[in-house]
């Protein structure tokens, strides 16, 4: 993208709370239950039913608001958002309008060592909708013959976090999203699983000539199912919009759909004109008036947030900022580090294994740490065996690969593969003598003063030991033999 344009991005993230029950009724809030089994008159919107807010859900949203440095409004209202779409059986969704629970916060994110502050416009409470499956020959929405609906998800507590249009690049958007996710994880208010839909995100993006005080034409992108999709879609859309501005093509304000397969966005055809949701106060739900004492009690009980945890890793464990960014990127990785340390491994070594070899294996397999078979115990054992010189670093890398594949204990892998280093000189001596006898040429070269020739002999001994010999011991023995005799 050219230097002469500036990108403006804002994100709207939806978070399903991990309460036991739904937002306004006692139906269970669980993923994967058989269709239409967690449904009652309230979430079905039957006449005469009365919604009552879930106390824990309100506590969770206040937690989120406080973690994002928001102001918690002392008077907040639920509104009905009216629309015709069968994912809500009552033709409206309970949401919040002009008086959300939390307003005016911010989240700081780091990209390449630079801090970017992203303003949070609002954090409001609403209910999730049912799950619609479009059925028909092609499986595409536009050509569906009919739709099937499961209302288990209808009424699940949903929090929407709306950012200010403060984000200036797809990379910062990704960092913001990751930081928000790990913050929610630390707060223990949601499963934050994008693949299960418990964390979803829509993006607004526009570009404008650099230095322009006015915003360009805004496009909303939907169907962002992973962090990778978010960044890819924004990069694509940024280029598309810049190209349009360069050629003088007119951009329209619209909603576009991201296609994972092609990596492109396309217009969602809409017959509707601008939506009129006719928001009005939900008459069945009295206002929320959280008192100061309760809010302060929640603030006092907030856990250590990701930024503070990373700072502590730098301060107390002596990790480099580069490492803490990687290791502190999610609750899972930070917990992994601390568990391995608790098992006796030095912090620096754990961080090195995590950010290098383990991270490489995860990237290659395209999975996240919690999905892998490697545990903190594996890493702690690996580090201990290397430190005790029981295995070489090279062998340790192989052992980790196998542990990654199979999840087998480290010691078992070392034994079955015979990777235990031989440091016992009597066992090594025989190989050293053999190697010298079998390779007169390098021996001659070494004696003639070509020091590098010894490497060939070391290699031969290592080969004979099937990698089990300790390289340093082999070198010492070879030098002693060659100069002595």
């Amino acid at each position: 993208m050219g230097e002469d344009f500036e990108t403006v991005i804002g994100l709207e993230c939806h978070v399903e709370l991990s309460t036991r029950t739904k937002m306004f009724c006692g139906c269970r809030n669980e993923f994967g239950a058989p269709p239409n089994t967690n449904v009652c008159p309230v979430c079905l919107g039957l006449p005469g039913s009365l919604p009552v807010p879930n106390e824990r859900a309100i506590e969770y949203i206040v937690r989120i608001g406080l973690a994002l440095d928001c102001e918690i409004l002392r008077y907040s209202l639920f509104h009905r958002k009216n629309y015709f779409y069968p994912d809500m059986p009552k033709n409206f969704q309970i949401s919040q309008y002009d008086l959300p629970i939390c307003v005016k916060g911010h989240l700081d994110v780091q990209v390449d060592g630079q801090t970017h502050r992203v303003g949070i416009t609002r954090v409001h409470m609403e209910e999730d909708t049912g799950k619609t499956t479009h059925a028909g020959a092609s499986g595409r929405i536009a050509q569906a013959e009919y739709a099937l609906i499961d209302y288990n998800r209808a009424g699940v507590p949903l929090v929407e976090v709306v950012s200010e249009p403060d984000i200036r690049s797809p990379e910062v958007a990704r960092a913001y999203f990751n930081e928000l996710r790990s913050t929610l994880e630390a707060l223990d208010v949601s499963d934050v699983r994008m693949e299960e839909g418990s964390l979803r995100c829509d993006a607004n993006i526009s570009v404008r000539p650099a230095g322009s005080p006015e915003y360009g034409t805004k496009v909303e992108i939907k169907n962002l199912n992973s962090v990778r999709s978010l960044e890819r879609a924004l990069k694509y859309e940024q280029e598309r919009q810049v190209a349009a501005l360069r050629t003088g093509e007119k951009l329209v304000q619209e909603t576009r759909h991201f296609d994972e397969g092609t990596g492109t966005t396309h217009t969602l055809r809409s017959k509707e004109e601008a939506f009129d949701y006719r928001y009005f106060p939900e008459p069945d739900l009295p206002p929320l008036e959280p008192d100061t004492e309760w809010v302060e009690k929640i603030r006092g009980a907030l856990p250590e947030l990701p930024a503070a945890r990373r700072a502590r890793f730098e301060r107390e464990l002596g990790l480099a900022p580069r490492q803490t960014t990687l290791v502190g990127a999610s609750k899972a990785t930070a917990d992994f580090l601390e568990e391995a340390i608790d098992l006796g491994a030095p912090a620096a070594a754990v961080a090195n294994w995590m950010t290098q070899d383990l991270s490489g294996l995860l990237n290659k397999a395209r999975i996240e740490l919690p999905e892998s078979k490697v545990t903190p115990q594996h890493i702690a054992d690996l580090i201990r065996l290397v430190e005790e010189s029981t295995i070489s670093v090279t062998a340790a890398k192989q052992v980790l690969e196998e542990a990654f594949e199979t999840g087998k204990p480290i010691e078992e892998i070392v034994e079955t593969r015979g990777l235990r280093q031989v440091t016992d000189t009597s066992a090594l001596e025989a190989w050293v003598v053999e190697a010298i006898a079998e390779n007169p040429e390098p021996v001659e070269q070494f004696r003639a003063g070509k020091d590098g020739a010894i490497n060939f002999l070391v290699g031969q001994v290592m080969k004979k030991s099937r990698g089990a010999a300790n390289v340093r011991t082999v070198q010492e023995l070879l030098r002693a033999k060659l100069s002595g005799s």
Partner: protein
Amino acid sequence: MPVEIDIDHVAKLARLDLTAEEKERLRAQLGLILEYAAKVGEAAGADVPPSAYAIPRANVLRPDEPVPSLSREEVLANAPEREADRFKVPPIAEVG
């Protein structure tokens, strides 16, 4: 004070296809209903803030404890159509 109703807009929002005769009749009726409701505004003094609620209550919450849901047959009893365990509805072109 008569209240003007944009009956075409209201009908559109409610997804109703009204005849000209129905539009006239409903415009008049809706106007009367709003006029009637507007009387509340006349009665309230300047010291009464507008509210959507009849009783001054706040923070009515329930504990996060599950209660039994309906049986699936009860849930689907009012479905216009069903396929296996789910509600079956006409195709949806619009993504909201």
